[in-house]
């Protein structure tokens, strides 16, 4: 290891772009495919400038046909390429569910291990930007339900920078959820930042009284809630799941076993969601270490509203996380 170069400040969006650029430079089999990823620079501006640098062969605009171009990505992966498919939002990815769930996730198993699908699919998720119900949902839990794919949710600039390389190195399909509310978030990044581990959850803040489990866009919310709680004398430990499938039981259960209290934060809806899965694992594996029922803070069971005040009321907030944590540790 060389001595770390000077750290640079960059946004989550710039970190992903840097990761894309690095991947395109490192491996000629890598190419980016998606709606408006070329001269326009991508629906969220992530690929801005890459078309000019790498040309139309490697930064390929796709028609508005998610199932079609995702299928093309699967075909290219089967043919030896390392495609990165960008889908503008998770809502639109529902049009590609057939290719993702029925093909990408199954082929390794259905061919007895003969065909793997080294495909990376990136998509934007989450609400909070007044884009209304058809562009704001968090359906990470749907993908985390499917065996055969790995599901990642970078919450920090470092993970935005490092998860893509790790995903490309995975011989099987990986879906990366980029939270739309995080693109402009800035963070410190070592100049030589590279691939990160995609097996383990991370403890973003250590604490002793309650474990707050979050992922993606709710991690900063959970950290802000932990600050509020700390001022009241409640030390919250914030666990960032990072990898939604397969879940890192050891890290999240280890934390709950230390604090005996758990609040699961999920921007998906609570019914039959990721938070329900995490809660069930805690109940199954850490029951005798619980000092209070597991609490969930999820998006209310409504399509994400357009008006700002209603949208904010529906999404997990600092206040709701603080209230849930207070109730579970009995300091409400």
């Amino acid at each position: 290891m060389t001595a770390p170069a000077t750290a640079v400040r960059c946004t989550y969006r710039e970190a992903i772009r840097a990761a894309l650029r690095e991947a395109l430079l490192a491996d000629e089999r890598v190419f980016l495919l998606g709606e408006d990823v070329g001269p326009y620079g991508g629906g969220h501006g992530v690929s801005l400038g890459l078309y000019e640098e790498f040309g139309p062969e490697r930064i390929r605009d796709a028609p508005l046909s998610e199932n079609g171009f995702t299928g093309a990505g699967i075909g290219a992966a089967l043919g030896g390429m390392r495609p990165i498919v960008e889908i503008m939002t998770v809502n639109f990815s529902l049009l590609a569910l057939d290719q993702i769930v029925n093909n990408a996730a199954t082929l390794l198993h259905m061919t007895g291990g003969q065909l793997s699908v080294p495909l990376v699919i990136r998509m934007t998720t989450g609400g909070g930007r007044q884009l209304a119900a058809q562009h704001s949902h968090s359906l990470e839990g749907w993908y985390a339900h499917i065996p055969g794919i790995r599901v990642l949710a970078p919450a920090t600039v470092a993970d935005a920078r490092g998860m893509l390389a790790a995903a490309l190195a995975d011989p099987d399909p990986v879906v990366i959820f980029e939270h739309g509310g995080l693109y402009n978030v800035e963070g410190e990044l070592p100049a030589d930042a590279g691939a990160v581990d995609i097996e383990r959850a991370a403890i973003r803040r250590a604490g002793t009284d309650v474990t707050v489990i979050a992922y993606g866009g709710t991690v900063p919310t959970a950290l802000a809630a932990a600050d509020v709680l700390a001022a009241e004398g409640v030390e919250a430990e914030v666990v960032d799941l990072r990898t939604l499938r397969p879940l890192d039981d050891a890290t999240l259960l280890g934390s709950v076993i230390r604090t005996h209290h758990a609040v699961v934060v999920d921007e998906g809806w609570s019914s039959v969601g990721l938070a329900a899965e995490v809660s069930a694992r805690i109940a199954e594996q850490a029951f005798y270490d619980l000092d209070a029922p597991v609490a969930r803070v999820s998006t209310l069971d409504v399509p994400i509203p357009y008006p700002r005040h209603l949208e904010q009321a529906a999404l997990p907030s600092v206040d709701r996380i603080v209230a849930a944590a207070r109730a579970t540790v009995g300091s409400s």
Partner: protein
Amino acid sequence: MSEGNGSTDFCMPALGADMEKGTLLEWYVKPGDPVHRGQVIADVDTEKSAIEVEVWTDGIVDEICVPEGAEVPVGTVLARLRPAVPSAVAPAAPAAPAKVPPQAAPRVQPKVQPPARPRVQPPTRPAVPGAMSAAPRVRSSPLVRRRAAQAGIDLAAIPGTGPGGAVVSADLERALAGTHPQSAHQQAHQPAPEPVPEPAAERTPRPRARRSPTADGMRESIARLMTRSKREIPHYYLSTTIDVGPALAWLRERNAGLEVTERLLPVALLLKATALAASEYPDMNGHYVDGRHHPAPTVRLGVPVALRSGGLVTPIVDAAEQLSVFDLNRRLRDVATRARQGALRASDLAEPTLSVTNLGDQGVEAVFGVIYPPQVALVGFGAVSERPWAHDGLLGVRPLVTATLAADHRVSDGHRGGLFLTAVAERLAHPEEL
């Protein structure tokens, strides 16, 4: 009621099939009071009405477990009773030791009255009716249960400050350290729990003595029961018109020599005839529970009484087939009056085995009723009215009543129902045998 260590638990009774919880309105006794079988010792408010509740064992009130004003689920221990030591025996014992049978094992008799409580309650445990005394088990977290088991500690002795009054690990740590529920850590960010929360204080105006039940509560209760009935019970309906001329003639004759308050009401004859017929047809009388019919040994009639405030209650006439029509008549007047005053007792509301509804006062001709689960039939009578009627080939004007049967098709078929309804008519044709 359950018994153990010689003590008896006096529990919140189920005053009707639909009752899930009740509010303890008023205690008529206090710890130390002797009580005897059949004595009314408390007033309980159900969603339907205020009910006086009797105790069914002799004894002495040892402990009042639920304060006035608290709403608790059916089955909650309201008070504990200890056996009454016959006053003649205890003082006499030292004077006459020879009377002790020689085989009797030497028993340690407490010399001092009253005898020691069978269970010593830790004085620190707060009474939290909604949470702790409602359930026989202590609310506690899994972590606390594991640690307490390891440490050999009885959680019942530890006051809980967690969600819903649960014992949480902080409570256990305090108990192990022998400190009071206000450690420095707790004071930092937790409002100190009240030493003895007064649940009645949290409730909006405390119900005082008897009050009319809330119309909403009763409506909800009726809605729940009737919905269950229509959902679960496949009803079939039969109807017959009965000539009650002979019965009314007999009634007039008998009433001629009676005080007004003693006079027989026509409904008494209708009820008696129904009870006798029901004892003949057990598939109309009893309860459908756990997928089968349990015929009842006697006929306990439920008689719905409409209340002025709306809704209804259903007091019972027990063993109606065995009562004389005069006794039945008296019983009916008594419960109907007390139902309207809101002065029914728990025993007035024991589970009926067959209900009889009488809407004749409202002038309707017939009533096709909804069976009260878990009963299996309901008999309805409309108004007794004079109508044209063919009898022995001649058209005449006769007093008629339409009797109807709503019965549970899981238990009986229309054939049996028809026989039963005909039996009611035949009984009414021979009033002197009622």
